[in-house]
């Protein structure tokens, strides 16, 4: 009698063809537990089966890269014997089902990825995307999801004691049924203290530490690999519950245990829990792991082997210790009040063997779960999905100041203080530049140098052109780092897309990967790891709503430790310089801008054009200017273009504004609000030297005005485009998000 029915296979997201492969690999029918193990290891989430062949296109090496993709986090050298480990991960699906815990455990998961490498986490950032807060139909739910996600991130990060130093928060209708929660974490480690998730030495004990195993999150990885339906709410028990206090103890205990020298390899139990950690640790070391589930600390009685192997209970780690030195490891965990138990041993054969009270319930050759996992070259010969036209509507602004106000009070561009004030962004006293800046900076006390980081995505650009959009994202992310004086050196990415089984969605994914690969190679920021989140679609009745293709780049840069250059103008009567020049725009290239979205409620054409070579020179120039101490303030131009960037430079308690006079043939809407890249605003007391440096890099550098007290005015040639009190704009910008969240905007 065959116990495995097609219904059971469907519930495990295993296709009939995949099941035939399983039968061939095992040369027999799988047990139910084995089927569960295959289902999680072969899930999109764990196996990257739809994206793997394309991810190989990313550049992954440079002389700074110590560890590229394939480990829990990427690692790069920062000099003086130290390295940083960093990575981004999504927790999109859980955050929709249960926003608070979904986001909280997203933070927990990525923190474990960092400290399992031996690195102490010192910074977190989040890229968040929700449905519009003021949408008449979905607004109330979008607001509730935002509040829950932000509280969840705050709860976990604040208690754990890692500063949340920045991120982004964007609103778009396509995220209403599929919010995106991408969490980035970064840690610091001495080179000789780096640990890998590799088992070695047959006979060595396999030790389980941390929280007990419960039934929560059974099948989280397969949930994250399917479209949402209206019934997804019934999957709530799949979302795990996080305990940041336990994680903090686990952090301290793991780092201390590693110091004993008795630990050989260590891996966190994240997606697919015990299954993934046992199989991957064995596989990486070309050995196997044999465990007996009766030794696994359990939260409740009567759990089946299937449930124990697939549980995604949080705050658990698996480590391999040196035989005979177990007590040194146990002593550390006892000191921190944590459960630790030997649950098995390393075995010479490359096999995962799971017993329950001595009886084998699963025995699978490791490569069957990892190397032999299906890899699909999904069809992507269709044009990337888009319905937006190439031509936009005819329009003429009635009031440019009103347009600027609309932009500044929109969810995308308004102050996010309400969000980041809930995060402890200062704990560990390393944050020299925190949330609200172009990039965050944390100093590394151990080396006396600093690390800058930025997260950037733009679903609208990528929807119009996944390839061009992905390049623009990388360019902006690098520009953000350069704007604070840091040299971009390495990247991680989170690829959020819809259903890859649809060729027009797969085409989005492939083009975005290729665009990102090209730009990362160009900017010399190899990708050291990341995450792919697919099936971000919601089926509502007959409609299938996919998110905008949303690759998010997380790039880190290096710089000396010093007082940071920040966005606001510092004093009146300084020259305002637009490094990179006024840029270019036409009607087609205006369709992806925030102006098109917020003022015209439209989307068309193509994203802004970019000349990568010019972009690189602009960035080199600003780093040079900052290194020479010539910039009193600096801010890159991005969403909302020149007018929004100028307004943001005016927002400080000092209310220093600017009187700007431009000289351009562009129409005023384009001139003020186009989003052409490669531009940075700075104020300086020495415009002559700034322009010499810019010239040396072959970059335009017009002086466009002077800082003044209290007002922002912008003229083009003889025509006054807008003039406003800085304080009024600042107040509207500061208060907008809370109004939106109260539903009173």
């Amino acid at each position: 009698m065959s116990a495995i029915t097609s219904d059971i296979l469907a519930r495990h997201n295993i296709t009939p063809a995949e099941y035939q492969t399983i039968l061939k690999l095992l040369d027999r029918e799988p047990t139910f537990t084995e089927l569960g193990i295959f289902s999680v290891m072969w899930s999109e989430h764990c196996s990257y089966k739809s994206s793997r062949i394309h991810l190989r296109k990313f550049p992954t090496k440079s002389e700074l890269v110590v560890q590229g993709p394939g480990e829990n986090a990427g690692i790069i050298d920062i000099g003086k014997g130290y390295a940083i480990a960093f990575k981004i991960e999504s927790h999109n699906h859980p955050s929709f089902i249960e926003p608070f815990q979904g986001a909280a455990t997203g933070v927990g998961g990525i923190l474990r990825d960092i400290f399992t490498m031996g690195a102490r986490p010192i910074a977190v950032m989040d890229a968040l995307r929700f449905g519009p807060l003021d949408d008449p139909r979905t607004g109330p739910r979008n607001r509730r999801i935002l509040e829950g996600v932000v509280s969840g991130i705050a709860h976990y990060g604040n208690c754990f004691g890692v500063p949340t130093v920045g991120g982004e928060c964007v609103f778009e209708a396509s995220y209403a049924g599929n919010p995106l929660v991408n969490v980035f974490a970064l840690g610091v480690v001495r080179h000789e203290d780096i640990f890998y998730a590799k088992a070695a030495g047959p006979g060595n004990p396999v030790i389980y530490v941390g929280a007990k195993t419960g039934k929560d999150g059974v099948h989280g990885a397969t949930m994250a690999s399917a479209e949402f339906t209206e019934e997804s709410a019934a999957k709530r028990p799949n979302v795990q519950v996080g305990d940041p206090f336990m994680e903090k103890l686990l952090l301290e205990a793991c780092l201390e245990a590693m110091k004993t020298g008795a630990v050989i390899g260590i891996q966190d139990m994240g997606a697919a829990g015990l299954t993934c950690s046992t199989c991957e640790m064995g596989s990486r070391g070309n050995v196997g792991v044999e465990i007996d589930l009766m030794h696994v600390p359990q939260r409740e009685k009567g759990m089946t082997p299937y449930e124990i192997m697939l549980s995604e209970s949080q705050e658990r780690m698996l480590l391999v210790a040196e035989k005979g030195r177990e007590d040194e490891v146990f002593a550390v965990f006892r000191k921190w009040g944590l459960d630790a138990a030997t649950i098995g041993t390393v075995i010479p054969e490359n096999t995962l063997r799971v017993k329950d009270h001595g009886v084998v319930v699963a025995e699978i050759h490791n490569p069957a779960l990892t190397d032999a996992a299906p890899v699909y070259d999904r069809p992507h010969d269709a044009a990337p999905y888009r319905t937006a036209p190439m031509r936009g509507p005819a329009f003429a602004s009635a009031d440019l100041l009103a347009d600027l106000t609309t932009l500044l009070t929109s969810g995308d561009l308004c102050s996010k203080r309400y969000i980041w004030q809930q995060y402890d962004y200062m704990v560990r006293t390393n944050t020299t530049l925190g949330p609200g800046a172009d990039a965050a900076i944390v100093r590394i006390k151990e080396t006396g140098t600093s690390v800058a980081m930025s997260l950037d995505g733009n679903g609208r650009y990528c929807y119009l052109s996944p390839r061009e959009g992905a390049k623009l994202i990388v360019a902006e992310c690098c520009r953000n780092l350069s704007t604070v004086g840091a040299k971009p050196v390495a990247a991680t990415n989170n690829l959020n897309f819809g259903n890859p089984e649809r060729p027009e969605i797969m085409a989005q994914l492939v083009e975005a990967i290729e665009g990102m690969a090209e730009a990362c190679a160009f900017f010399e920021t190899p990708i050291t790891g990341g995450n792919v989140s697919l099936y971000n679609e919601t089926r509502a009745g007959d409609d299938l709503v996919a998110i905008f293709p949303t690759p998010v780049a997380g790039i880190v840069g290096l710089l000396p430790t010093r007082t940071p250059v920040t966005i606001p103008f510092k004093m009146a009567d300084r020259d305002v310089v637009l490094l990179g020049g006024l840029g270019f725009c036409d009607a087609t290239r205006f369709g992806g801008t925030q102006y098109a979205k917020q003022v015209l409620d439209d989307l068309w054409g193509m994203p802004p054009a970019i000349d990568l070579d010019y972009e690189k020179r602009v960035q080199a120039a600003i780093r040079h200017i900052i290194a020479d101490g010539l910039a009193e303030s600096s801010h890159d131009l991005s969403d909302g273009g020149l007018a929004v960037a100028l307004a943001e430079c005016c927002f400080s308690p000092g209310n220093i504004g600017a009187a700007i006079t431009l000289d351009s043939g562009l129409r005023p809407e384009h001139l003020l609000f186009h989003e052409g890249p490669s531009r940075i605003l700075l104020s300086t007391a020495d415009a002559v030297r700034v322009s010499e440096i810019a010239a040396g890099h072959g970059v335009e550098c017009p002086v466009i005005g002077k800082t003044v007290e209290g007002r922002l005015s912008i003229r083009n040639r003889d025509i006054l485009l807008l003039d406003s009190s800085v304080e009024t704009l600042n107040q509207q910008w500061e208060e907008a998000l809370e109004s939106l969240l109260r539903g009173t905007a």
Partner: protein
Amino acid sequence: MRFGVVVFPGSNCDHDAWYSVTHNLGQQAEFLWHGSERLGNVDAVILPGGFAYGDYLRCGAIAKFSPIMKAVRKFAADGGLVAGICNGFQILTECGLLPGALTRNRGLKFICAPVGLRLESTNSPFTCSGRKGQILTIPIAHGEGCYTASGRILDELEAEDRVLFRYTSNPNGSARDIAGICNAGRNVLGMMPHPERATDPLMGSTDGLLVLQSMAASLTVHS
């Protein structure tokens, strides 16, 4: 002189406190494990910020039972300087070493922000290096920092000049804008703002050094 920084499971500003003493104040500091029943050879004790024991049950409610707190009580009773910062303040009120309680912020959200503090009294070993009325910029980072006490206790604190810091713009709903107080013996301080986060120009303020410098100065006088 030597500062002891208590490490509870869940303390997460312990290292910051240690670093500010050793690197920015220029004195010695060591960590004191919560399971220890003695303080060893320290001249002052800091109960740092964080989430001791996960803040389960109530902030500070479990920490007060940890072995080291017995030694801290004894140390305080003998006149030793004890400074509780943020979670440390919460623990001190739970222990009864300081009056009142810290409850959820008005607005019910965690707030991390630099705030203005007015130095209300220089008559303490924690503020003696300052000037009465001086305005300091020191960050807060808490979800439960709303200082609450009966009217009688509040009157008493004021009558005895035991309110050391007040918020210039009350961020959390604290009674009478109170940000920091001391005990009747004036040797135990509790404050919600984090002075250790304002001890280096790179952090945007060095105003927090005043607290550490005052402690060092008064210890020098007495030793």
